[in-house]
């Protein structure tokens, strides 16, 4: 009896798998010239060579943000402020303002119009609590730590992305599957307590070295 059920379930699964694959094949446009990104929803770039060549997070002054007029296309704002590092996976760009603040320009479509003025956008900048190497460290040799600001999350997986004010103003995705999350006062927290523009300290054992990198967090402390 159990064998029969197993066979039926396997047949069912395989059938649906095949149907699923066929449906997907009908939808996906596999380009023969695959270096061309097929959707430009979140990018002003037309190919990955251009995108990846912007490897550094751009530093700007607050006066440059102030000049932005309301109802400007996000793509125009990025041109105005200058191209900055494109982390590829999300619809945002980050800038370092006056050497000490983080400005994140978020959008759902780069061809949307931004309703905010420069003054309003400037009010969203956030100062880095720590910069470079000046943050609490792990006492364990096997555990590394980093400070960052949550700037975005992957809407499909709820994966958080943090901006790290190191030499390169880099960014990494957080793998939180094995992470214990707490507030600075020691109270327990959860993934739901992690929000954009929060300061966090992460403790981790390794980083998967793709680009963007994925950091395997063992502990996350929300510090504000």
């Amino acid at each position, binding site marked *: 009896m159990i064998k029969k059920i197993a066979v039926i379930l396997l047949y069912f*699964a395989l059938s649906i798998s095949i149907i699923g694959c066929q449906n997907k094949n009908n939808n996906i446009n596999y380009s023969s010239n695959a270096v061309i990104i097929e959707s430009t929803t979140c990018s002003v770039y037309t190919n990955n060579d251009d995108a990846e060549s912007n490897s550094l997070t751009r530093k700007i002054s607050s006066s440059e943000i102030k000049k932005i007029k309301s109802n400007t296309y996000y793509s125009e704002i990025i041109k105005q402020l200058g191209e900055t590092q494109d982390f590829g996976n999300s619809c945002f760009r980050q800038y370092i303002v006056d050497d000490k603040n983080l400005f994140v320009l978020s959008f759902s479509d780069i061809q949307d119009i931004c309703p905010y003025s420069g003054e309003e956008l400037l009010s969203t900048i956030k100062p880095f609590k720590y910069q470079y190497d000046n943050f609490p460290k792990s006492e364990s040799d096997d555990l590394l730590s980093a400070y960052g600001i949550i700037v975005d999350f992957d809407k499909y997986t709820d994966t958080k992305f943090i901006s790290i004010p190191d030499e390169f103003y880099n960014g990494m995705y957080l793998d939180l599957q094995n992470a214990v999350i707490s507030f600075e006062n020691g109270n327990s927290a959860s993934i739901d307590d992690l929000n954009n523009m929060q300061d966090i300290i992460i403790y981790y054992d390794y980083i998967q070295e793709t680009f963007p990198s994925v950091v395997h967090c063992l502990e996350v402390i929300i510090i504000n």
Partner: protein
Amino acid sequence: MKRCIKRFIAGFSAIIMSVTTNSMVSALDNNSNMENHVEQFIVASKDTNSGEITYKNFDTKLTTNARNNKVNELSTPAYQGSISQEEEISPNNVIGNDDRYRITHTTDFPYRTICRIVTYWDKDNDGVIDNTMGIGTGFLEGPNAVVTAGHVIYDKNLNMWCEYAIITPAQDGAGSAPYGNTRSTIIHTSTAWIESGSADQDWGLIETQSDIGNQVGWLGKFWTSGSLDGTSVHVTGYPGDKPQTMWRGNGSITKSESARLFYNCDTMGAESGAPVLNSSNQALAIHANGGSYNSGTRITEWLFNFLEQFN
């Protein structure tokens, strides 16, 4: 909903396959001498043209025979391809305290066998390739086989394969492709990586459309049952902080585990999949992780034999 169903089916199929394999392993255990017991592995493969995913037990006859003959070392030499060898490269671009230096003569051997990999995804399952790319490194292992890390082609957090990959050997700057680029046809990894994210099984293999390896050559590989501590190695790849350029970090093995090697070569994001090479241009491991010590998936006896199929 569609995505949930797909994941359920994928998971269910994998479970069925695992159960089947476990039964086979049990049967083998009962019938064979424990000394000669060879662990069974299931290789998951995705056809990046059709999207079809298959699972297959790897034939371990080679490993079994080696055990019977008490072989404790396996080695294949590098192949330099049909291109004539040019002059050797000397390190000449050391930057500050960073121990890496740039490889500018990327068309020299063995560097021309090291590839930049761009992966494309459909994370929202809407049938359209996302405006997303993952970047990694890989190295040629045969005429049309590129070895990389498992997480370059299968995202454990997303439980998702990439849709396809584009491979460029010997890239040296934006738009550079001295030997052109080629696209994936079938990508492989271990079900152990897919199911548990085991760092010991963080390897991937990309079969490519063109047999570019015949032209540029491929790396050798080396496995030993003993320790590799102290062995001089280098990790050469395409770090994300030096976009689209090839960089090399020298160092030595600091710790040898049965399925992982640790070393003190400098690496950065996007170098996952880079070869950890000895002085004979043989890969000892596949770079995967950074941390207190950088580490890579060791080319084990089993993985050696698996890769040998593509050589």
